C-alpha cells in the first residue's frame, strides 16, 4: 500500500513572538516559504483552504500555490478546500489547470464547503441554496475534468454548449476530491460523480468515519467505478514534546474556536475537551512526532485511508513554530507512520 502525507493551511494569520499579529501580506509570504520548505522536509502534498476572514486571509490560494510551484519540483499542490458552491466551476478548473501547467502536473483540488460560510454573502449566494449549488457545480466540474468540449445546463450558471475550456491538461484529469464532514449523502455523491473522498475530521472520534469509507467504496461499485482513494484531513501541531505542542497550540485553538463558535455552532473548547481531542480517541493531532505518528497510523488503518493531510497552524502561532512543525512532520512523523504501517 502506498501512503502519502500532506500539510494544509488556511493562511492562518501569524503572530510575532509577543503574540502581535503579522500583516496579511507577511502571513501570505510566509505561507509560500512554508510550502517550499514542506517539499524539502519530505511532505508529499501542500494544500491551501479558501477563507475570507481577518484571521484566515486566504481567498486566492491558487496564486500562492503558483508561487510555491515555481520554487519546488516534486510536491503536489492543491486546494483544501475550494468552496465550489460560491465559485464558478469553469474558473476553478481554469485556475487549477493553469497551476497544473506551471507545476508540471502537480495540481489537485479538494472541493467542498469546509465549515466556512463567509464566501456566500461575499459573492452574493444564499446559503439556503447550498445543496443545489454544490450538486450542480460538482457535476459540471466532473465534466470539465474529463477534458474536451463540455455541454452542460443548470440553474446556477450560464449553460455551456460544446464549449472548449482551456488550458487543456497534458496528461488527463488532475486528482480531484470532494471533502465531506460526515454527511453520508455527500459520500455517495462523491462516488456517483467519480471524485475521490476527503474526510474532514475536526472533532469527535475518527473511528466513526470507518463506515463512511466503506460506504464510499461500495457506492463506487454500485456506480460501476473503480476504487478511488480516501484521505483524512485533521488539525494538529507537532513540536519536540507533547507538552510543548499542547502549550503552543491550546491557547490559539481556544481563542479561534471561541471566536467562530457562535457562527459555526462549535462548542467552546475547555481544557478537558482539548485533552480528550488530543488523546488517542480524539480528532486533534497535537504532540511529539511519536504521538502524532501513532495516531495517524492507527486512524489511517481504521479508516481504510491512504492519505493523511495535517491542517497545521492556527492564528497567532509564529512562522518559526510552524516551520518547526513542518520540519518534524516531514522528517520524523511521516517516516515513522510509514514504518508503523509497513
Amino acid at each position, binding site marked *: 500500500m502506498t501512503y502519502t502525507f500532506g500539510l494544509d493551511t488556511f493562511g492562518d494569520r501569524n503572530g510575532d513572538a509577543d503574540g502581535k499579529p503579522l500583516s496579511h501580506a507577511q502571513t501570505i509570504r510566509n505561507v509560500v516559504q512554508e510550502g517550499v520548505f514542506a517539499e524539502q522536509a519530505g511532505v508529499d502534498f501542500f494544500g491551501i483552504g479558501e477563507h475570507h476572514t481577518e484571521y484566515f486571509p486566504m481567498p486566492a490560494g491558487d496564486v500562492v500555490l503558483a508561487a510555491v510551484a515555481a520554487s519546488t519540483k516534486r510536491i503536489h499542490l492543491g486546494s483544501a478546500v475550494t468552496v465550489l458552491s460560491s465559485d464558478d466551476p469553469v474558473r476553478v478548473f481554469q485556475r487549477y489547470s493553469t497551476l497544473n501547467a506551471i507545476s508540471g502536473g502537480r495540481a489537485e483540488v479538494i472541493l467542498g464547503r469546509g465549515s466556512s460560510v463567509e464566501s456566500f454573502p461575499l459573492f452574493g449566494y444564499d446559503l439556503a441554496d447550498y445543496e443545489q449549488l454544490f450538486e450542480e457545480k460538482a457535476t459540471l466540474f466532473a465534466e470539465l475534468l474529463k477534458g474536451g468540449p463540455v455541454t452542460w445546463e443548470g440553474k446556477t450558471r450560464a449553460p455551456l454548449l460544446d464549449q472548449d475550456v482551456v488550458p487543456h491538461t497534458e496528461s488527463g484529469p488532475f486528482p480531484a476530491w470532494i471533502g465531506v*464532514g460526515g454527511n453520508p449523502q455527500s459520500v455517495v455523491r462523491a462516488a456517483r460523480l467519480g471524485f475521490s473522498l476527503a474526510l474532514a475530521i475536526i472533532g*469527535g472520534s475518527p473511528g466513526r468515519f470507518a463506515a463512511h469509507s466503506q460506504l464510499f467504496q461500495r457506492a463506487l461499485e454500485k456506480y460501476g467505478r473503480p476504487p478511488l482513494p480516501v484521505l483524512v484531513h485533521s488539525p494538529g501541531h507537532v513540536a519536540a514534546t507533547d507538552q510543548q505542542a499542547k502549550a503552543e497550540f491550546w491557547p490559539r485553538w481556544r481563542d479561534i474556536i471561541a471566536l467562530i463558535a457562535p457562527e459555526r455552532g462549535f462548542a467552546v473548547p475547555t481544557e478537558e475537551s482539548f485533552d480528550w481531542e488530543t488523546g488517542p480517541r480524539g480528532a486533534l493531532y497535537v504532540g511529539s512526532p511519536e504521538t502524532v505518528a501513532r495516531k495517524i497510523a492507527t486512524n489511517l488503518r481504521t479508516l481504510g485511508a491512504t492519505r493523511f493531510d495535517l491542517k497545521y497552524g492556527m492564528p497567532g502561532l509564529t512562522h518559526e513554530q510552524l516551520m518547526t512543525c513542518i520540519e518534524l512532520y516531514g522528517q520524523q512523523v511521516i517516516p515513522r507512520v510509514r514504518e508503523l504501517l509497513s
Partner: protein
Amino acid sequence: MQEQEPSRLAVLGAGHVGPVIARLALGAGYPVAIATSGDPEDIALITELVIPGAQPRWAVDAVADADIVVLTIPLHRFLDMNPALLTGKVVVDAMNYWPASDGVLKPFEDGGSSEIVARRLTGSTVVKALNHIGYHELEDRARPAGARDRRAAGVAADDTAASAAVARLIDRVGYDPVRLANLRAGRVLQPGGPVFGTVLARPEFERAVREDARSLA
C-alpha cells in the same frame, strides 16, 4: 412493572444528524425506520453501512408506523414539508435555526424555532430535544444510566405525556433527561443559548438553564 414494548421511531433525514440519532436509538433497542423526501432505494446503501439495523422506507410509511418521529432535516426543507404527513404523531424537533450557517429564513426570525415548528404542525405534538449536542459528539458522550460521566440532554414540550415519552428515549440512548416546562422554555437549548454545543453533566446543565432563565426575567 412489566417492561413496555419500545416505541417505534421514524427518523426523517439522512444527513449529518439523522443517522447518528438512528444509531443511538437502535443501540438502545428501538426499532428504527429512516426516510428522506425521496425513494428509500436511494438510501439503502447508506442504511446498510452507516445505520445497520434501520429500515429505509418512504417517509409516509415510516411515519405511519412510528410512535415517535424525529425531524433532522434542514429547516428550509421543513418549510416545504406537508404538515399533514405528521398528524397525530409525537414529533421530536432536533432541527436548529442557524442563520449564520444555513441562511436567513424569514418565518424563523422571530421567536423559538420549535414554537414555530409547532405552530406549523398543528396536528402533531412537538418536543424539542436532541438538537443541542453536536452530531459528532452525540455518540461519543452517550453513557448508560448511573455512569459517573453521564451527561444531560434537554427535553422541552407543552404536552406532559409527550415530554415524558421523549425523556425515556433520551434516558435510554444515554443521557440524563432534563425536562423543561414548555416549548417556550426550550429556547435555552437553541444556538446562542447557555447549553447549545456544550455537553454538561446534569447539575451544571440545570444551573446554566436556571441562570439563563433569571437573565431573561
